[in-house]
């Protein structure tokens, strides 16, 4: 067949697509991990891929920004030489929900365009990706409509929406066309089927039960006015500073760097690993001085980072409403709960 912009695929076609993607090169996709948890993993067996899931423990950013990554091989003593470690091997990232697509777009900016110096590993891995998006339904933690990410297609090369017993495939880029082209059968979607796919957006809005009580445009100023809010202190009494909220966040991009020597002690690798602004040592500098020693300072920093500073720089909040932080907080701290408490205070004090 010749690929059409909107093709109807049967479920068997989607499995065939996965099979083909897996044969072509590395394939990262969601798989079931625990009793009720999912994870984006490099899959050997495309049959293990979960077509339906709500959220994964770590977001799909790990395909292009792995949680642990060696990026330099070096020899001792200094000056003896070093080589950058960058992988440009093409791969397919399958099953990315709209919120996570939005997060990848934000990381494209943060790692590739925000500063003059780009993150070469991220940019290379991002360029090597063919991304297949997948429509989803929210659970009680999701709030994508509030942050405007629930209809995201940008960033995907191909996007699948479950319709009837099959999937409506939107071909969004040349890479997406190439992934489908000629190998997977399919037929032109009918106008009813297109309509059914488009109705998902409204369904998602209706099903979402938590929200942010402000427009994104007013958020930064509202928070800014409550820098001294008691909410930060009260949240800190309950916060472990375990860093889970930021480690699982699809838009967080902080990392720590460490040199690991081989046992020859003459060569080694420079590696990075996700770091968190919630860790007590995160803002520890020479002196020693720690400019966010208090737990409440770190708590506040997280909301200010996402909804004040980066919102002003990027134009959108650095939060995509995926609900991972709230769902995985063992202390039950809700991202929207804290945000709304501060918003309410700000409105009250302005009134």
């Amino acid at each position: 067949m010749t690929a059409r912009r909107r093709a109807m695929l049967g479920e068997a076609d989607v499995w065939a697509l996965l099979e083909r993607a897996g044969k072509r090169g590395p394939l990262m996709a969601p798989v079931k991990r625990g009793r009720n948890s999912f994870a984006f993993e490099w899959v050997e067996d495309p049959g293990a891929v979960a077509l339906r899931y709500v959220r994964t423990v770590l977001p799909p950013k790990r395909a292009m920004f792995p949680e642990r990554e060696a990026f330099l091989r070096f020899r001792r003593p200094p000056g003896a030489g070093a080589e950058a470690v960058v992988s440009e091997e093409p791969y397919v990232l399958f099953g990315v929900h709209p919120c996570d697509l939005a997060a990848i777009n934000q990381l494209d900016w943060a790692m590739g365009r925000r500063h003059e110096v780009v993150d070469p590993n991220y940019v290379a891995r991002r360029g090597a990706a063919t991304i297949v998006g997948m429509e989803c339904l929210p659970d009680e933690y999701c709030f994508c409509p509030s942050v405007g990410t629930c209809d995201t297609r940008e960033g995907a090369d191909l996007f699948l929406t479950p319709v009837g017993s099959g999937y409506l495939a939107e071909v969004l880029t040349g890479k997406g066309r190439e992934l489908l082209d000629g190998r997977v059968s399919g037929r032109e979607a009918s106008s009813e089927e297109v309509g059914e796919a488009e109705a998902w957006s409204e369904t998602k809005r209706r099903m979402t039960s938590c929200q942010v009580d402000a427009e994104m445009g007013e958020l930064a100023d509202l928070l800014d006015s409550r820098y001294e809010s008691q909410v930060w202190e009260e949240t800190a009494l309950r916060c472990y500073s375990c860093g889970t909220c930021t480690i699982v966040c699809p838009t967080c991009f902080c990392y720590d760097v460490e040199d690991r020597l081989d046992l020859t002690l003459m060569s080694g690798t420079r590696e990075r690993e996700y770091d968190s602004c919630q860790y007590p040592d995160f803002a520890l500098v020479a002196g020693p001085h720690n400019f966010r020693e208090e737990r409440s300072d770190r708590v506040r920093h997280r909301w200010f980072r996402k909804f004040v500073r980066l919102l002003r720089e990027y134009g959108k909040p650095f939060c995509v409403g995926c609900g991972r932080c709230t769902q995985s907080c063992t202390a039950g701290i809700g991202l929207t709960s804290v945000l709304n408490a501060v918003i309410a205070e700000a409105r009250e004090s302005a009134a």
Partner: protein
Amino acid sequence: MGGKPRVAFFDFACCEGCQLTVLGLGEPLIELLEHVEVVTWREAMSEKSEEFEVAVVEGSITRDSDVPRLKRIREQASTLIALGSCATLGGPHVSANRLDQSDLLTMVYGDRAREFEAGEVRPLSAEVQVDIPIYGCPINADEFVSVMKHVLLGRPYRVPNQAVCHECKLNQYECVYDRRQICLGPVTRCGCDAICTSRGHRCFGCRGLVDDPNLNAAREVLEEHGYRVEDILSVFELYATWARPEEGLGIVEPRAAVKSRKGSEPWRFRSSI
């Protein structure tokens, strides 16, 4: 030092499982021996020497008569590494400190109790300065190798100070709380690569508490999971007794901060976890 640094292994009250972990390293141990000379290691060899630069000490101090030996080791060593939970935290037997000493001796030795000596169980740091603590019950073999590399290069070793949740999440293990069980991961020092939660267990806290644990949160969360106040301390008893978590948990002193804010929980996502 001149030549290879000389390393000596010693043990006090322990199961010697951490030294066994080092012995079980395999190839990395052989590679390490390219860089160091092991001069004393009762568990592994018969030779002995009083001259060494690096002392690796497993076990806790339980008898006053052990103290002079530990002090001699400290005087000789330019670097003293405390190996495992017993040496760093007192070990599981630190919970004996909660019992009456003479009852304890009778319980264990019966009629012959008077022939034995026992005292407060304590980590090495209660008696001497420890340069590098390697936590864990048992230790993580990879961390031992990493510490040795730092010692060999004269670089400061950064002891992990994140919670176990850090490594648990990096490995994408299902959260123990999502299985409706409790876990000490959020207040326990990582470095184990979340080995217990990888096998479906909870974290028992064997690496001790992080430097600044939020025990107020721990108590509230445990209470919300059905633990009675009197049971909460027992959750921490196994490894955290020496750190005296009672105060942080609000079990000996009323928690003023929490009292004043009841009814105001702006952070709470749902009414119960």
